């Protein structure tokens, strides 16, 4: 290809002084795939999505879940999503922004959901994750605990668990931890 290089080098020297095209924003493959996921979102009424950085930053967004049944009925739980440029090769990073008393979500907002880590597959999408998160509120699971104490209470005393959840959502202490109101 050296002949081609030679021609190009001559052109380059000529073009040196002329102004080039304005810098182009690069759209990563991850962004394109996410665009598809977002354009096809089919959320239940209990879930809401917001884009704090406006319509052109889809890589960072928030999902609010309002469970319509179960222990968490009436609560508002906000999750932040941060999506990598190599999505869907890598799962989005999801954190729970609302402090919640939950066996599978710790007090720092880490979420134990298999499809966010060990079981993530590129065929899954944002919709699947949101349904997975929703599922955590209708079916909290004491077998995969992140909040060990909450899991033990759910397993041994569901009635107490229920009242602890209500107290946390209404704003108050459960044990040593204070929860802000999220109803």
């Amino acid at each position, binding site marked *: 290809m050296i002949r081609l290089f030679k021609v190009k*080098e001559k052109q380059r020297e000529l073009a040196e002084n002329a102004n080039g095209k304005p810098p182009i924003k690069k759209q990563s493959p991850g962004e394109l795939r996410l665009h598809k996921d977002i354009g096809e979102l089919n959320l239940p009424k209990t879930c809401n999505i*917001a884009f704090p950085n406006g319509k052109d930053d889809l890589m960072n967004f928030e999902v609010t879940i309002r469970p319509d049944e179960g222990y968490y009925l009436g609560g508002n739980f906000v999750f932040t999503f941060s999506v990598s*440029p190599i999505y869907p090769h890598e799962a989005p990073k999801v954190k729970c922004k609302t402090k919640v008393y939950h066996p599978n979500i710790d007090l720092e907002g*880490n979420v134990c959901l298999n499809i966010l880590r060990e079981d*993530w597959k590129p065929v899954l999408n944002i919709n699947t994750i949101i349904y997975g998160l929703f599922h955590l509120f209708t079916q909290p699971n004491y077998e995969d*605990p992140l909040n060990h104490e909450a899991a033990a209470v759910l397993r041994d005393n569901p009635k107490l668990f229920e009242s602890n959840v209500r107290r946390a959502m209404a704003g108050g202490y459960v044990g040593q931890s204070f929860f802000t109101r999220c109803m």
Partner: protein
Amino acid sequence: MADFVAPPSRSRDLDKLLLRTGNLVGSNFEPGAELRDDLQEYARILVVGAGGLGCELLKDLALSGFKNIDVIDMDRIEVTNLNRQFLFRVEDVGKPKAEVAAKRVMERVSGVNIVPHFCRIEDKEIPFYNDFNIIVLGLDSIEARSYINSVACSFLEYDSDDKPREETIKPMVDGGTEGFKGHARVIMPGVTPCFECTIWLFPPQVKFPLCTLAETPRTAAHCIEYAHLIKWDEVHSGKAFDPDDPEHMKWVYDEAIKRAELFGIPGVTYSLTQGVVKNIIPAIASTNAIISAACALETLKIASGCSKTLANYLTYNGVAGLHIKVTEFVKDKDCLVCGPGVLIELDASVTLEKFINLLEDHPKLLLSKASVSHRGKNLYMQAPPVLEEMTRSNLSLPLYELMDKVAKDTIHVTGTTSKDGKKTSCLRKLRVVFKAIDGVTDMDTAGGA
């Protein structure tokens, strides 16, 4: 006086490749002194990464006769690099890799000019990358490869028959190593598969379930990830963990040790902590040398045509004995990054709404309910309602204006397509060309800027 004898080259071996013809040469190979001299004068090579592979690549390329080389790397030299990144010395620790590597090679190989760039690859404007004839990658991350790949593919243009224009092809040579294994590949965008066509070749990262870390750790790595992912946040609320800060790493190591003792798990060490947290697999100097040599040779082959190039993916395995295999992967014809996209000709007056309707009837697309994006700007989103509302006002505007009045450009559309009565969702690349736009733009800009 032997006036007409070509002056002896410093590299006899190179002359054997470049001054004589052979049976395996590439098409258009024209051996001779002119080729050798042109290669030195006109070929401009960019080496991305000045680490384990980068040091080897710079040395190999310089000794292969390339004289115009640039190198880009954002890292500084660490003491743990010194065993294999042989251009660096103890007194260089803390200095930028790109600068030291360039200086050392220039000191040893006369006549070579290496320009270092101590910055992130994203910090350079896109046209910077177009100044090079070949881009050689010595990287350790998928993200960085994916980025350079999409930049190189963005220079690619297709003609109206969906054939790549040769002068717009930006060849890449990619090397990668992990311990005793490695790969070298040649990417000719539009001709051979690009990085994105075959991203599935990279195994997914191993991620442990968070609840295992929190509840039932079984290995040293579990203890380290617990300290890194869970304990760090608990103690340092809001402060981000920096894997390059030795104090942060020490903290994680100490916590991991405590955790391991609690559960009676052996094997937590400082270097394992670094390895797990930074996802490092021990690098082997000889693997880097072998892979870099393959990459440098391919670079020389592409530039000179002195041999057919690797087709197109070499894997090397030195774990037990030695195994090398070349696989010819195929291009994804619908690849969003290197594929031609569907060519669509439009009038400059067509509104976004009309365009979306056109896609429904386009024989190659049959795309209904399309969402449209252009260079990271979302022109119209069908869902969710919050985005639909924000983009609805664009529907009545001419697409040409929404695309910043560029006569031809790539846009992406997503939607549903029907095939054999079955509806599937899809994401497509389109090459939009506006008809007879030259006259219009001239008139437009005449009175304006």
